[in-house]
């Protein structure tokens, strides 16, 4: 099994159930994410992919079991599904990317020179530096998602969690974004947990696949997933 750089554990989920108002959406999920790995989370709509990601990020508490993010949340970053950015929201690309460098435990509330440098590098890497001073609402959907990806990597994460990051983008931009994820994973030595419906990407890029259907339907290498399940999750 090819799992990237080494076998250091980044995150452990032990028999975790998650849901809302006491009702479980996903139950008894256990897996280990290793450093350098690309774990693709697949499953039909409503199978609990986003709920699992929210649990991992600490946005909702686990109803049962334990989630242990070994590297700490400061080393985790996140890119969500593209949402309708309020076109009037007064935020420039630079302000948004810089905000990604904020960390919870820091005493000084202001951005340091290092933060600004990290944000500048992230914008240059994603080729959005040309419109750093523009309002986010003036950009196209693909450009906006690049800005949010730049914000995610500006904090120099070790683990990048992506929740259907291309769900509202057209096919050409989607292909570009997936290439970007590959490039970033390689260049920044990222570990990635990505929920997606794009099976072509899963076949090409996943080290392992976790298929959810309110509980774990499958976990194994991308090769095994394609062989045993024909590479298509149950809808």
């Amino acid at each position, binding site marked *: 099994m090819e799992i990237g750089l080494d076998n250091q554990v980044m995150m452990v989920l032990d028999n975790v159930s998650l849901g809302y108002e006491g009702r479980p959406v996903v139950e008894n999920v256990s897996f280990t994410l290793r450093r350098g790995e690309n774990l693709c989370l697949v499953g039909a709509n409503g199978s609990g992919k986003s709920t699992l990601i929210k649990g991992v990020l600490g946005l909702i508490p686990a109803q049962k079991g334990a989630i242990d993010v070994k590297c700490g949340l*400061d080393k985790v*970053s996140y890119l*969500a599904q593209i949402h309708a950015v309020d076109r009037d*929201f007064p*935020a*420039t690309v630079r302000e948004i990317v810089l*905000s990604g460098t904020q960390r919870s435990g820091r005493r000084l509330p202001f951005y340091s020179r290092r933060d600004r440098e990290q944000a500048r590098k992230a914008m240059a890497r994603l080729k959005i530096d040309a419109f750093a*001073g523009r*309002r986010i609402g003036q950009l196209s959907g693909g450009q906006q998602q690049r800005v949010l990806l730049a914000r995610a990597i500006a904090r120099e994460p070790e683990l990048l969690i992506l929740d259907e990051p291309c769900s509202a983008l057209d096919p050409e931009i989607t292909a570009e974004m997936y290439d970007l994820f590959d490039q970033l994973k390689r260049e920044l030595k990222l570990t990635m947990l990505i929920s997606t419906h794009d099976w072509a990407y899963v076949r090409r890029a996943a080290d392992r696949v976790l298929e959810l259907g309110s509980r774990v339907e499958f976990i194994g290498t991308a090769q095994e997933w394609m062989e045993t399940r024909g590479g298509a999750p149950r809808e």
Partner: protein
Amino acid sequence: MNEFFEALSYPFMYRAVIVGVLVSLCAALLGVVLVLKRYTLIGHGLGEVGFAATALAVALGLSPMAVAVPLVVLASFLVMYLSQRGGASGDVAIGVMATSALSVGVLITSLSRGSNVDVTSYMFGSILGLTNADMWLSAALSAVVLVLYFLLFNRLFSISYDETFARATGINVTLYQFVISFLTAVTVVLGMRMMGSMLISSLIIFPALTARRLTASFRGMVVAAALISVGGFLVGMAASFFANLPTGASIVCVDLVMLGIALAAERLKKR
């Protein structure tokens, strides 16, 4: 105009201008966050709680601010707590709280004085009645609001723009939401004397709405809102002085004209 500057040498006038500028600044800065987070109703609801608290303080012979600050802060925490639970409960809570507080305030005023003569001064402000003690207390509370806002500026941006990302990256969003509530409550109490409990929310909403039309960045919106708010206060104050009009209502009308101009300018630019 000379007449206006001469009038500034009177203690009641310079006290009014100093407090007015400070309150306008605090209200504008917080207004940016409240407008972007769609929390603007909170300011209005808290104004009415402030009215009830002031009526209670007067009835008991206590300092209005000493009673209003803790009560309005408590009410703001309650509203924030209910808003956090999601759904419509936040809006409903504000509606219930605002109208109940207003009624209680009117009843207290009526029972304690046997008439409702003083109600309008609580409701619509009386900035020229500020004492020296009022001025110093207002200056101290404004300093707290401004310093906290400056220190938390970047966090406030993150939370206003994308609360989920902020939470996901370990920022204690709930704590900052309660800080925003606290600062709003203090600002509402500060502004009540000047604008009255009915009009204080306009000082929070209008400058931010106008600034939003004019700028591309969050920082730009904050600076523009501050300038618009202080400018609106000074023009409104001068207008009320010359035309002998109520100060609070004059300031709101100036703010409304500025919003109208900003909207028209935006329309013309789009054409």
